[in-house]
């Protein structure tokens, strides 16, 4: 049995059983390790990626559900305007500590900005509270999201 979908714009056919979480298909079968593992139970957000534009937790998302869909990981996040703004802001704001949670944080943040281009602090709380950071980078994540929103706003004006 196989499942076909696109990952970061590339069509793949995988043989893992369809109930295998997308996370392990990406990491183990396809060797794409940009999507991280922190809990396996949709509690930490480290595995966040986009399926047809929606942020999902890949650790509980069966690969079968991805059949025929467009899966985007951190590897191509910068192909979207929000994604680029997020990555730039993350680097400029020096958000990173250990970094393990950060691809997932960026995926959630980009998804927020796509829905809500100028989020306020409450929007950020709501959108980001599913992404844990054990290193405690929340202050800077918040600042980086505001920074990304400003950059996107500037682009839109320009």
């Amino acid at each position, binding site marked *: 049995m196989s499942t076909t979908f696109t990952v970061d714009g590339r069509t793949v056919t995988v043989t893992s059983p369809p109930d295998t979480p997308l996370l392990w298909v990406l990491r*183990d079968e396809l060797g794409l390790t940009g999507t991280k593992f*922190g809990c396996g139970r949709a509690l930490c957000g480290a595995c966040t990626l986009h399926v047809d534009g929606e942020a999902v937790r890949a650790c509980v998302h069966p690969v079968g559900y991805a059949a025929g869909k467009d899966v985007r990981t951190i590897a191509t996040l910068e192909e979207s305007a929000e994604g680029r703004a997020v990555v730039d802001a993350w680097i400029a704001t020096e958000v990173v500590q250990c970094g393990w949670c950060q691809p997932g944080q960026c995926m959630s943040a980009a998804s927020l900005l796509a829905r809500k281009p100028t989020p306020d602090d409450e929007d950020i709380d709501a959108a980001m509270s599913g992404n844990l950071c054990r290193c405690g980078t929340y202050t800077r994540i918040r600042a980086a999201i505001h920074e990304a929103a400003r950059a996107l706003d500037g682009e839109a004006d320009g």
Partner: protein
Amino acid sequence: MTRADRTHDDAPPRDAAARRDATAFAPSRRAFLRGLAAGGGFVLAFGLGDRVLAHALSADASDTPFEPNAFLRIASDGTITLFAKHDEMGQGIHTGLAIEVAEELEAAVADIDVRPAPADRAFDHSLYGVQATGGSTSTWTSFDQMRTVGATARVMLVAAAAARWGLAPGDCVARDGRVERRDGTAALTYGELATDAARLPVPEDVPLKAPERFRKIGRPTPRVDSPAKVRGTALFSYDQRRPGMLTAMVERAPTFGGSVARVDDTAALAIPGVRRVVVVPSGVAVVADGFWAARRGRAALRVEWADGPGAQLDSARLRREYTRRAGFPGNVVRADGDFDAAAADADRVLEATYEVPYMAHAPMEPLSCMVELHEDGGAHLVTGSQFLGIDHPAAAAALGVDPSRVTVENSYLGGGFGRRANPAADFTVEAIHVARAVRDLGVPVKTVWTREDDLRGGWYRPLWVNGITAAVKDGRLVGWRHRIVGQSIATGTAFEGAMVIDGVDGTSVEGAADMPHGIPNVRVELHTMKLAVPVQWWRSVGHSNTAFAKEAFLDECAEACGKDGYAFRRELLAGHERLLAVLDRAAEAAGWGGPLPVGVGHGISVHESFEGFAAHVVEASVVDGRPKVHRVVCAIDCGQVVNPDQVVSQMQGAAIFALSAAVDAQITFTDGRVDQSNFDDFPILRMHEAPPVEVHIVDTGGKQGGIGEVGVPGVAPALCAALHGATGRRIRRLPIGDQLG
């Protein structure tokens, strides 16, 4: 023997001691250097005491990378590689080490490719004498060494350029990755000079810049690892893959010290992708094609366990027993004056019991270690460790071979907080046992941990109970007795000899035995408990307990003396300039004494740990019976700062880490089993609960000290003082949980 070996061996040692060192550490270093020198190389290694040990020249004269020491390599294409002796687990040390080198090398930090050093004695911790990252020591213990690394290379590059031009070295100057003629007529890049520099003798006693001349140290420098980590391309241990690699997951005994009685692996082996089920000393390992098959296979195992000594563990009972002990005299650690007489003569005697729970490190990246066995009995390990100096010999011992047969490669660490510095090399040795059990498969095996494994796997910060008694006379604190009850971390480890003195583990009493406050009669006592729970250093170690008990109880004493917490501490700390400096800065920045919104309280603390000095002001209230933290303001004095933005980042992260431990997270036992399993029942702070953390760096011109752990201890007591201000209720036990409900 390769030419690299020969030249290394032939190089004359500087003295007899150097010869001994070189001999002792030669095998693994040679293996390492050989790897580096592929295609030509030149290495000089700094051994213990930063002494230059030897040159190791290799091969192709035409294209010889310049490797002035085991840390640094400059290729003829200009690539500069720094092998980081300290592990990058978020604290920004790869960048810090690069700044220290770049300052003297006269190269841009961004042009240095920083890689984790493999296991090798060349990378021993300058103080601990073993390859390790911990104790908030990386920056200050490497400061002179790394600057020397850069300066030595620079002097050699300048000499090479001078020789090329027929000038005196003084007529040349190194700047931004090039050596220029002072007359401005020519310049050569470091890459162009690498081969020539590789042939020069290594200078000794190279002078270092005076701090006034620093151009990089002390200024904010972007982290070297940020872009790769944000883009998901940075390699962590969990991400490491090798062709044919299998993934193993171990079902460990549900009680500490338990063992396998019987295994039924029929259902597990029927899961597609499961290759083997093997019994190893720590439990039953399922070896499979990948994580998911391993996990499904493990879930299908039927294992009967023989209970171990941990089967009786029960948190409620432990807490009662610890509290009872706190009522009796313990091993005396400090006795200034006469506490009993002071208490007898006091106007008032205050007494309280403070308590912190077992605590898991829960690094965001769970543990893993890959083992590739060699035919000669040795192995190559790929791991994410803070403690290669322990893991490496432990791996060799588990394999029954000389350490020279074992190589260990490190990765970025997805958080450590002490967990990856395991004194028993637990996850390393276990991975070796798993790989050996399936040796016939002939492929690398990566043993991975889940979050449940991590939280239930032991090696916690110990449960500690403190009985504190204070004597107050004429509105002053005249007596202080602090009894600490808890397990010893160092006992039973290789560090016992150094760390446990006269039955007292220094980590159990740090922050209490050395409290500097001006109290005439001080008595500190310790009860060391022996239990089956494996315990370990957790970010800030003993200070995470002692600072909580000390600072929170000082607040009770301040109230009894009718004084404000800030003023009270100022009096008690008279003469301790660095503590006072951070205390004043935090109070001032937080607007201490100013009005607070209704329902909001504030608390203050100041504590020295790991040779760093930190003060915290926390503002908090109670909403729906739960603590709400509005703001944290902290000040730190760690001496000469290398990268100020990363000091800020560490203090911010430490505050959040400490709040998680103060508010909800804990490890408890019922019937010998750990009650927690994942981030639902081990909750750490989330975005909507995280307050802004404001950081102020204070430099009083004192000695360099720690940072990473220093920001943790003072947070919980300041929070509890703030909650007392807000509600009038004292919290004496962490986590706060629903105690305010």
